């Protein structure tokens, strides 16, 4: 890991935290999009699996150290003693999967539409399937609801996350045009 | 409000200057030459670099401390090849970036200064002494325990400079130090620069700042197009920038 990688990881982690502070953006339809989990998807897509996962881990470490870095100013051990621990851990695993999937799905030379779809697909795989999967696992255990019912709770967040995945794909595509980052 | 010009006058003790030697250096990126066959021997106390945006001033400065590796040619500071002996060169040559925020790594002033000292292997006792001395030198001792994001742009720049001075380099490189400052801060910076006994190489658009320098180099598209007395160089740059 070069100093440059260190810089990318640290600054992207800072971005994820900052996105939890910036207020949600109301889409044209009036639906507000919260940005922090979008930031985690972007970490995997833009920095790649290893650095993206590290950025997510940095955020998790900051939470563990007691700092109010999660959206709403949450932080500290209490978060880990709560229902969302699975989602949080899922961020790191999900970022890795997203980054890896992006390397597979996003083929250089393909049309813009295909590339954006590939990136969004990678974000769905990591940011949705993995994050919700791990989130539901913990939630089921934590709440005593069992997988099926915990899954029902999680489902409520899926439409929002699908929109975020598409946005993540679009953002990544446009960022890549403005800034060249070697794929790792 | 900190004001270094009200501090006791510093009697500049001219420190031994370093010789920065570029031997036919080229830096090519994406087919474009950021530096194009540059040969220079810089040894004066005050050297200016002028050129339009993108001419290569930043690349030139950054290559002196090994942040940019030449595609051809070698750069040596006091005989040390910058690529192979980067650490040693960085111990004697400090670079002040254009945006002081990007240079300040820790959230509290004293901690940030300690970072630079720790990298160069100073003991805890020496670190404390050097931090105090560097802050004092610039008249910002009062800022030692302050949080960086509470400081003004001018103060941040002084903190970044203090971070470099604490290591006691022989040469200081400045990348457009006044481009983001208002008039008062620009004047203050000029006073600070005038009082520095270290050798200084300054890339700037602020031609007034360089007016009484020993030597000014004009760069265009990565090439040296003029190299000589400040007045003449500035006139050449002005003419070519029409």
């Amino acid at each position, binding site marked *: 890991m*070069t*100093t440059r990688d*260190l*810089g990318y*990881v*640290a600054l992207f982690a*800072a*971005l994820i*935290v900052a996105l939890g*502070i*910036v207020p949600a953006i*109301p*889409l*044209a339809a009036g639906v507000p999009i919260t940005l922090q989990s979008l930031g985690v998807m*972007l970490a995997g897509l833009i920095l790649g699996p290893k650095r993206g996962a590290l950025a997510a881990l940095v955020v998790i470490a*900051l939470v563990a*150290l*007691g700092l*109010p870095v999660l959206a709403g*100013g949450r932080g500290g*051990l*209490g978060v*880990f003693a*709560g*229902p969302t621990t699975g989602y949080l851990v899922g961020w790191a695993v999900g970022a890795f999967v997203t980054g890896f999937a992006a390397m597979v799905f996003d083929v250089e030379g393909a049309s813009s539409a295909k590339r954006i779809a590939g990136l969004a697909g990678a974000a769905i795989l990591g940011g949705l399937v993995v994050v919700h999967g791990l989130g539901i696992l913990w939630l089921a255990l934590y*709440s*005593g*609801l069992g997988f099926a*019912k915990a899954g029902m709770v999680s489902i409520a967040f899926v439409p929002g996350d699908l929109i975020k995945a598409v946005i993540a794909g*679009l*953002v990544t595509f*446009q*960022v890549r045009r403005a800034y060249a980052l070697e794929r790792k | 409000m900190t004001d270094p010009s009200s501090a006791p006058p510093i009697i500049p003790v001219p420190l031994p200057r370093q010789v920065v030697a570029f031997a036919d250096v080229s830096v090519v*990126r994406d087919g474009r030459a950021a530096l194009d066959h540059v040969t220079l021997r810089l040894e004066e106390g005050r050297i200016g670099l002028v050129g339009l945006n993108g001419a290569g001033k930043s690349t030139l400065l950054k290559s002196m401390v090994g*942040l*940019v*590796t030449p595609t051809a040619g070698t750069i040596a500071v*006091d005989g040390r090849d910058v690529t192979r002996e980067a*650490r040693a060169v960085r*111990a*004697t040559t400090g670079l002040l*970036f254009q*945006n002081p*925020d*990007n*240079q300040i*790594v*820790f*959230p509290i002033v004293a901690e940030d200064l300690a*970072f630079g000292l*720790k*990298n*160069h*292997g100073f*003991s805890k006792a*020496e670190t404390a002494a050097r931090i105090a001395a560097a802050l004092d030198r610039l008249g910002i001792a009062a800022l030692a325990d302050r949080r960086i*994001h509470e400081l003004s742009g001018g103060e941040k720049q002084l903190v970044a400079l203090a*971070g*470099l001075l604490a*290591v006691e380099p022989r040469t200081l490189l400045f990348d457009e130090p006044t481009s983001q400052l208002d008039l008062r801060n620009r004047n203050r910076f000029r006073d600070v620069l005038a009082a520095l006994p270290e050798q200084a190489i300054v890339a700037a658009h602020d031609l007034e700042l360089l007016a009484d320098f020993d030597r000014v180099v004009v760069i265009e598209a990565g090439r040296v197009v003029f190299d000589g007395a400040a007045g003449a160089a500035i006139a050449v740059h002005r003419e070519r920038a029409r």
Partner: protein
Amino acid sequence: MIAALGAAGTTPLHRLPAGAKLLGLALLATALFLIDRADVLAVAAGLGLLAARSTGRPFAALMRDLFGALMVIAAIGIVDLLMVDAATAAVIVPRLMALAAFAHAVTLTTTTAEFTETLERGLAPFERLGLVDAGRVALTLTLALRFVPLIVEEAHEIREAQAARGLSGSPLALVVPLVVRVLVRAEEVAQAIDARGFPPPRSAPRPTSLPSSRQPDPTGDRPSHDHP
């Protein structure tokens, strides 16, 4: 639940080393999830509240701290009652309350500095294996924290500029320029870190001496990393 983090104190919990508290909490949490008896868990919840109270924090303040968590637990309890059965709710609610209370007790008696130290010590064995460099980890965490306010400011600037152009409904209009700025900044920060001599030499700090650049460098030099 924004806790009053690690206020200095002299209660027994305050004086316990952070590592012990965290380990204890982890073991306790495991035990809580293995125990299935509502009565035992109810006692545990009571003990948890006592532990939190033993830190010196007044009861009313504790309730305020734990309000958010307790609301979530109550909601889970109700959902359990309605969608599973009363027996489950009777087990889950005290379990989660115990967990929250004990975790809060640790949070109240441990400072961020102590957590950081524990993290460093936790990483030490991995460092000896050469897998991790604690210095780099610490730097990364510090850097992240250091730049959060700046990035938030940049986000606001971009938002204002976009609003002035009628683009406030587009997440892309905010996120794309923000991400680019972050990446550009990251590059320059990395350069500045290198220029300031990072990483520190692995050997002992150099002996106190006059600042002389003519001394041979005992640690050897690394090749520079290319920064276009």
